[in-house]
């Protein structure tokens, strides 16, 4: 059989990580994603013990996280499950709901700061038309970033995840790395 080599969304054989002063941007190749939508009249389930968050918020437990994407709709994240059928696992946790595989549709970039919230807020202010100070820990939303739609998840004061379309991974990396590099000048 043909010897196939898996590549990341950016085309590398391993996840790209780059430092920009206080900021580090890393490609999160391990993140499994699946969306969960309620059918009409359903109550929210709690898959894997996750409490599904309210409007514009995210929630996390060991190994899993969820963020609100629309009314009655969430994206569920699973650490280290990008190479497994995570949607199937989620469907068995919430069999009444609509579950769709999303891992292969998205690329996740984690931006971490060693200097608290400041550098994260500065880079946000350059990239998105969202108030960084109001976007505190546990916030999550979808917005436009250089004409690309992205999800932003504030995992902690000094850590934000940018989840965008996988086909635009290079453009998104370019946007994030350019903004991060200009922090230092």
């Amino acid at each position, binding site marked *: 059989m043909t010897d196939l080599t898996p590549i990341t969304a950016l085309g590398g054989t391993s996840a790209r990580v780059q430092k920009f002063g206080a900021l580090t941007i890393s490609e999160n190749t391990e993140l499994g994603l699946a969306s969960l939508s309620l059918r009409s009249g359903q109550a929210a389930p709690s898959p894997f013990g996750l409490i599904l968050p309210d409007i514009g918020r995210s929630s996390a437990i060991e190994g899993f996280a969820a963020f609100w994407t*629309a009314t009655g709709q969430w994206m569920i994240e699973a650490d280290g499950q990008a190479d497994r059928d995570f949607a199937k696992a989620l469907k068995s946790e919430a069999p009444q709901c609509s579950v769709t595989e999303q891992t292969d549709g998205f690329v996740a970039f984690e931006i971490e700061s060693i200097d608290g919230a400041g550098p994260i807020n500065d880079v946000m202010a350059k990239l998105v038309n969202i108030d960084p100070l109001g976007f505190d820990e546990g916030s999550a939303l979808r917005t436009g970033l250089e004409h690309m739609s992205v999800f932003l998840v504030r995992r902690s004061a000094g850590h934000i995840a940018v989840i965008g379309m996988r086909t635009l991974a290079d453009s998104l990396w370019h946007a994030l790395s350019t903004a991060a590099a200009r922090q230092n000048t």
Partner: protein
Amino acid sequence: MLIPHPLLGLRDAQEFTYLGDASLMDRPDPTLDNAETAFCDYVFMRDNPAGVHRELWFHEQGDRSWLVVTRNTITHEILGAELAKDLKLNRKDAQ
């Protein structure tokens, strides 16, 4: 321009796409005798008011909800925004 999204607060109008007059939500009943005339008006006839206008906006780069935004077309002042889904459901309940 900022649109006060009922769920998400003030959001940049660039995240939204515009559809048109909010009366587009009131699709005529195709089974009625005057359906042809009603649809002709529905498809082609629009008011073009200079002043307060109710219009449909889609939060495309957001939660993908439809909003009915009340906007003054002269000043661009936004007077309010409601979820189109809520309006439709309330109207259904009222009937």
